[in-house]
């Protein structure tokens, strides 16, 4: 088979989308470490439902890039076995709505492998899946259920919101000796391409990323909502309000130190996420900030989230996704509270 991967890879000086960054990271990881294997439905010949794995099979062969049957339960079990035997499987689930079939394996085995074997085994697997609404797809292709995974001790949950963070975090996730749920905001797959250097540099998995420095209010978000949150920060700047924007990115474990420090600086906080409100991570973050920074808060922490319903069909999608206006309204409440 032809093994020249340079023609299938975006050049380093070109603008790269989040989707291409994911693809680049997998190319990089597979060429650096022969134990890395990619598997999933249509990931090989077809290059993945969104073409995230395009070119991998040509480059690394069918033994390392494996087209699986349509059976997520089996995929969940398979990657745990591969990981336990020293491989580093990266499994793609086509849509987040299909991930639940693998839940039993994730919760009962992958997450507990290290604990259950008293540290003798670990589970260095990555489960990749697109997440979120906004691409005119049905509800089981549009959900944001990251909190379900964040609730499980032993799983890392990582959600990049830019090409650079997708690249650096996916490489770090593949390196990590424990299971990582890597959720890619589908709505951002092709938006806002950025120049990216394919240098193999990892980003830390245990930290937030401060996207915009500010002094009046802290806007906390992750995933696709980072896009609207940054727009809201721009709108606030036009009114002379200096907003700090933090992409949580690693939603489990949470980098509460960074969030606390920022909120102690600004005294005001709005949390934005596309997941439904009840049991969403916004509540977890708000509770932690109240525990740590109550005496520095100037206003109650505001949450901007989707309502407690499944994602609607696409005509109503824009009402479901937190909008810039929703965020600005919450900022208004926080800024004018007292």
């Amino acid at each position, binding site marked *: 088979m032809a093994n020249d991967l340079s023609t299938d890879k975006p050049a380093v000086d070109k603008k790269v989308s989040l989707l291409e960054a994911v693809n680049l990271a997998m190319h990089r990881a597979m060429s650096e470490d022969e134990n890395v294997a990619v598997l999933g439905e249509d990931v090989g*010949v077809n290059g993945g439902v969104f073409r995230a794995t395009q070119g991998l099979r040509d480059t690394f062969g069918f033994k390392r890039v494996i087209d699986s049957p349509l059976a997520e339960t089996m995929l969940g079990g398979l990657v745990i076995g591969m990981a336990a035997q020293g491989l580093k499987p990266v499994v793609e689930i086509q849509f987040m709505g299909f991930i639940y079939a693998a839940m039993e394996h994730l919760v009962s085995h992958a997450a507990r492998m290290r604990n259950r074997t008293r540290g003798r085994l670990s589970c260095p697997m990555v489960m990749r899946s697109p997440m979120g609404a906004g691409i005119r797809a049905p509800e089981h292709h549009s959900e944001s259920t990251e909190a379900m995974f964040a609730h499980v001790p032993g799983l890392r949950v990582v959600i990049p919101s830019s090409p650079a963070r997708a690249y650096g975090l996916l490489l770090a996730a593949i390196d990590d000796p424990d299971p990582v749920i890597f959720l890619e905001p589908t709505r*951002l797959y092709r938006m806002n391409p950025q120049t990216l250097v394919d240098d193999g540099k990892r980003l830390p998995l245990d930290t937030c990323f401060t996207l915009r420095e500010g002094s009046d209010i802290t806007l906390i978000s992750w995933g696709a909502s980072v896009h609207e949150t940054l727009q809201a920060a721009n709108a606030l700047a036009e009114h002379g309000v200096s907003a700090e924007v933090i992409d949580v990115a690693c939603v489990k474990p949470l980098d509460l130190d960074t969030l606390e420090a920022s909120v102690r600086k600004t005294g005001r906080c709005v949390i934005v996420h596309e997941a439904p409100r009840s049991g969403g991570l916004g509540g977890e973050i708000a509770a932690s900030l109240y525990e740590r920074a109550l005496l520095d808060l100037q206003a109650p922490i505001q949450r901007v989230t989707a309502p407690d319903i499944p994602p609607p069909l696409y005509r109503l999608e824009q009402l479901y996704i937190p909008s810039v206006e929703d965020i600005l309204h919450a900022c208004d409440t926080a800024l004018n509270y007292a």
Partner: protein
Amino acid sequence: MKYFKLPDLGEGLQEAEIVEWHVKAGDTVKADQLVVSVETAKAIVDIPAPYDGVVAKVYGGDGDILHVGEPLMAFEGEGDAGTVVGRLEGGGSSQDDQFFVGAAPSTREHLSARATPAVRQLARQLGVDLNALSGSGSDGLITRADVENASQAERDKFGGEKLRGVRRSMALNMAKSHAEVVPVTIFGDADLHRWGAARDPLIRIGKAMAAACRVEPVLNSWFDGKSLSIKHHEKLDLGIAVDTPDGLFVPVLRDVGNRHAADLKEGLNCLRADVKARSIPPKEMMGATITLSNFGTLFGRYANPIVVLPQVAIIGAGGIRQEPVAMDGQVVIHPILPLSLTFDHRAVTGGEAARFFKALVEELEKPEST
């Protein structure tokens, strides 16, 4: 790129070996043009191009085995974008993605004061800036003692003696009035040549003020700036500023308009004695409706006395002096009483004040009643 995959060659054959490529990357091909020859278990098959295009890449070299459905060659151009459902939008903002790993530099530098609400309240009362303190509590928490120490240190830095009692209330009340009242002062003189020899003007000024209040009752009012409300008084309760070594006392002489001069004089002497002995009950210093400052007995001519809230007017009486005045075309020497009226222009108009002042002077210039 668009991919042309190894087609089903019939007869259930699943793989083929490449015999020879007839095109290479970069070639332009036409539909149905021969691109590759492959050998199956049955025969050598020539595979034509499916459509016009430019070859971007060929997969596999001579002798390689390909399976049905695997990419055979790639054409340049926009390929299949994937996604069987949904639509991925491109573009978006052209904002550069720049970020700090972890906290922003200003967040790291920022060390805001941490204190409980009660300590914050104490700091506000004592005028202590919490951000200037470093807390001695756990994790930099500012304690009550930290605030008290800072406040003490601030006082020690200035030194001096702490104001107490009457001087303290004077400082507070005067500052409050100065901050709130909109003062206007009118000056004028009363010619006292019709008076007899005995000249204790205080009671007469008081009686004259009562007469002037009948002309312009608004001067005898209390005003509340917060609710913008005014309260008129029937009786004149005159606050009389009394100078003492301990500070300014203002005892109140009640119902000046309706009492006889002798009665008033006796009351006044009583108040003065009480002030001097520091035995005046607090209620005797409350409820004045206008104040009179008779500073002229010490020195001075005109003044801008401070209106004491909630009153709206204060009269300043200067020292009586012999002055040449023009009378019937002649220069004569008369005793002249210089007067100042300061009023709160929020509650009283200039016209009301001037009419009040005119009535006051006319009353004073009458002969002494017996």
